């Protein structure tokens, strides 16, 4: 039903809403009236000079009763956006996913990356209390509480030894790790690592240091927050922020119909029709996510490195990007994190080579054999990509049979089902991606890449305190993955946000980075 809706909406939008068609007189009177209405809000000279005041309504994909106010339990984009308005982390990630200072204004380690000292900023909670080292220790202990398994940062911060960590003075906190880790600041920038006030235990009464103060919350519908004048990073320009929940079609209608000024995560199809009109502007963060096929390296036929390479050579990446992503993205190079810190930029782009792939598949005895690709409608484009890829693989004489599973359980099923399947990842630091997905004990190791030598080399790189040396070691590991790994990264989709033309100051940066959804920095012209 949702797919049908999207198709009908797209057609109607192209026919009725796009200005290009209106000028040809389509819809007669309605068209004329509409153009007048549109020029009222879209045309004119949008002032680039920041102005204060007003209300901004931002709408995200909703999660119904699943939506929470507790910043340590967040996992949905809509939750993250709400919590980001009210709470902050010690560290955030820059556009290249490199740690940047937030509530911690600086940090240093003992030379071995085992004991870390964070100097706190002069920030104030909404209840008027100053941020102290005790708040930080309390927040980290709250995240680690084993009695509450849904605190999301629990496993990523398991390396923290809280018993040995301490407050040096009110503005300095010393955090001790169980094992050295030069990437520790980035871990503090992960999902669900917000700093709450010492003793905070009632999530329904939010109290953070963020740019907006809590007003009201209705799970599955809305959150309202108002400007916090005591914000350390300069008070927001808008006075009131509404973070609302809705499906993709409703988001599109809301932002086009003037019921919202910011709509998160829009489709490429919507972007194309919307850009033809003037009622919204599309802000596209280039290559912010990754779409890949993942092959299990311990299962036939992908336990043979030749077969993995053959499949990588068979992918017509540009065609996949053009068709599945409607051209809104760039081709992938079988690695996560293009453009991010530690990515080996000198790696040549893998090109399609059907002849070589054929030779490899013949050697492996796979010609005219059938392989199953396990997919599901779990993320936009999964099934389409699998179907199109099956056509591309068929050119080498291998039949790829597309099997579709349950969308809701796909993330879990993929760990055990199917020798090849779909994978999508949002923006995160490269070392974190490796820890989550590419080590023997990684919880989300969808390619079953379990190599003790790789684990050891990664561990050695992670403790390397010299950034250049660390970067070189990570580079080596990524080259191994590019040649031998089970990830066939075919596309890097743009992340699309639709804004009303009067909204200024929205930055085109990947989600989960510091300047994404910074409603304290935008203004209404």
């Amino acid at each position, binding site marked *: *039903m*949702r797919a*049908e*809706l999207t198709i*009908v*909406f797209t057609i*109607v*939008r192209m*026919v*009725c*809403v796009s200005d290009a068609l209106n000028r040809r007189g389509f*819809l007669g009177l*309605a*068209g004329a*009236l*509409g153009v007048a*209405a549109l020029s009222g809000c879209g045309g004119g000279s949008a002032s680039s000079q920041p102005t204060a005041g007003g209300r901004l*309504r931002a*709408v995200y994909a909703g999660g*119904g*009763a*699943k939506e929470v106010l507790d910043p340590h339990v967040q*996992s949905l984009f809509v939750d993250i956006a709400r919590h980001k308005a009210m709470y902050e982390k010690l560290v955030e990630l820059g556009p290249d996913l490199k740690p940047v200072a937030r509530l911690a204004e600086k940090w240093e380690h003992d030379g071995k990356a085992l004991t870390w000292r964070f100097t706190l900023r002069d920030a104030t909670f909404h209840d008027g209390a100053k941020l102290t080292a005790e708040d930080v220790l309390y927040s980290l202990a709250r995240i680690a509480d*084993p009695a509450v*398994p*849904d605190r*999301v940062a*629990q*496993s990523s911060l398991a390396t923290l030894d809280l018993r040995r960590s301490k407050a040096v003075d009110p503005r300095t906190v010393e955090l001790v790790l169980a094992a050295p880790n030069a990437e520790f600041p980035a871990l503090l920038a992960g*999902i*669900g690592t917000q700093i709450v006030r010492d003793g905070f235990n009632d999530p329904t009464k939010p109290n953070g240091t963020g740019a907006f103060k809590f007003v009201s919350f209705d*799970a*599955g*519908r*809305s959150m309202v927050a108002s400007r916090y004048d005591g914000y350390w990073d300069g008070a927001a320009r808008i006075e009131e922020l*509404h973070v*609302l929940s*809705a*499906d993709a*079609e*409703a*988001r599109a*209608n*809301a932002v*086009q*119909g*003037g*019921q*919202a000024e910011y709509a998160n995560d829009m489709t490429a199809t919507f972007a194309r029709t919307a850009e033809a009109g003037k*009622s919204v502007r599309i802000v596209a963060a280039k290559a912010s996510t990754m779409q890949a096929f993942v092959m299990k390296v311990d299962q036939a036929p992908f336990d043979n490195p030749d077969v993995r390479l053959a499949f990588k050579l068979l992918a017509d990446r540009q065609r996949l990007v053009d068709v599945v992503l409607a051209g809104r993205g760039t081709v992938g190079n079988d690695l996560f994190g293009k453009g991010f810190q530690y990515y080996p930029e000198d790696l040549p782009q893998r090109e399609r080579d059907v002849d070589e792939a054929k030779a490899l598949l013949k050697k492996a005895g796979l010609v005219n054999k059938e392989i199953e690709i396990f997919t599901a409608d779990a993320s936009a484009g999964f099934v389409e990509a699998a179907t199109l890829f099956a056509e591309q693989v068929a050119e080498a004489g291998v039949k790829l049979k597309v099997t579709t*599973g*349950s969308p*809701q*359980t796909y*993330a*879990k*099923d993929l760990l055990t089902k199917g020798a090849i399947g779909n994978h999508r990842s949002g923006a995160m630091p490269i070392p974190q991606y490796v820890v*989550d997905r590419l080590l023997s004990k990684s*919880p*989300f190791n969808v390619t079953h890449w379990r190599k003790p030598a790789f684990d050891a080399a990664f561990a050695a790189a992670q403790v390397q305190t010299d950034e250049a040396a660390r970067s070189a070691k990570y580079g080596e590991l990524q080259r191994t993955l590019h040649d031998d790994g089970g990830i066939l990264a075919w596309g890097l989709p743009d992340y699309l946000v639709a804004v009303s033309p009067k909204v200024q100051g929205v930055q085109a940066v990947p989600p989960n980075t510091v300047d994404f959804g910074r409603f304290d920095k935008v203004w209404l012209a």
Partner: protein
Amino acid sequence: MRSYAAGRAALAVVQLAVLSVLVFILTSLLPGDAADLRFTETLSPEQVDRLREQLGLDQPAPERFVHWFSGVLSGDLGTSLISGGPVSSIVRDSVGATLVLTLATLAVVVPLAVALGILMGTRENGRLDRAITSVTLALSAIPDFVIAVVLIAVFSLKLGWLPATWIGSSLLASPILLVLPVTVLLGRTVCLLSRQVRAGTITALNAEYVVQARRLGIPRRRLLLRHVLPNAAVPGVQELARTGDTLLGGVLVVEAIFAIPGFATALVDGVETRDIPTVQGLTLVLAVAALLINLVADLVCNRLVPRTELLR
């Protein structure tokens, strides 16, 4: 009449119990449970297992059902596996929008369909009858979502007269939100209902007693209102009960398009997150409403035309 009501009530209890078991079995058969679905690359498998234990999902299914059912018997619909709050509050939060939408639709549909039905029935096969038939049939043949999309494109996005969605607004503050969804829901309901009234009118007009009454010279107006309408209304009332059922269940398409936080949305969310207590609670409430509506419809028919037999 009293024994009749008691019989119907006893039957209803059995129906509800069977329904609860069925819904429980069906939702349990869906792949994955509420803990599994939290496995979204933020919770590790080990955290998911601990969560499953906390939610009690590691208990055998029959045990969980008995626990839930004994709660229902004492008036407790249980606790949502997702929000951790009472299911009754999810029911309360979602029923309002659907109820208002249903009542508003019925308030427009009933007089409109009755008027159209009598108009058509008294002019059987006339030009007006054929014109109204064509228009209502055409409207009912177009899927809801197509009508909705076109109305939004024209009246919201193009002309800017009506809000496109319910996002961020409340019915109390802007009742105008009802206009588009009610218009969409009218299409099919008016058609079905008016056709029933039309058929009833024609049957009644050709019935012996009406022919006789006409021979006796009873004025046409009185004939229509006192003798034809009550008989013509019987199939209409039964159709109305069905319409009420459908509308109360929440019309998913309409709720999805206009972002209405109603019953159907809550039900779909519940199924998608495998929140079994919520799905159970919502279906139970819906089933009770359906049983009540049908009972009332039967009683109304009996009142209108006492010779209609009550269903047993």
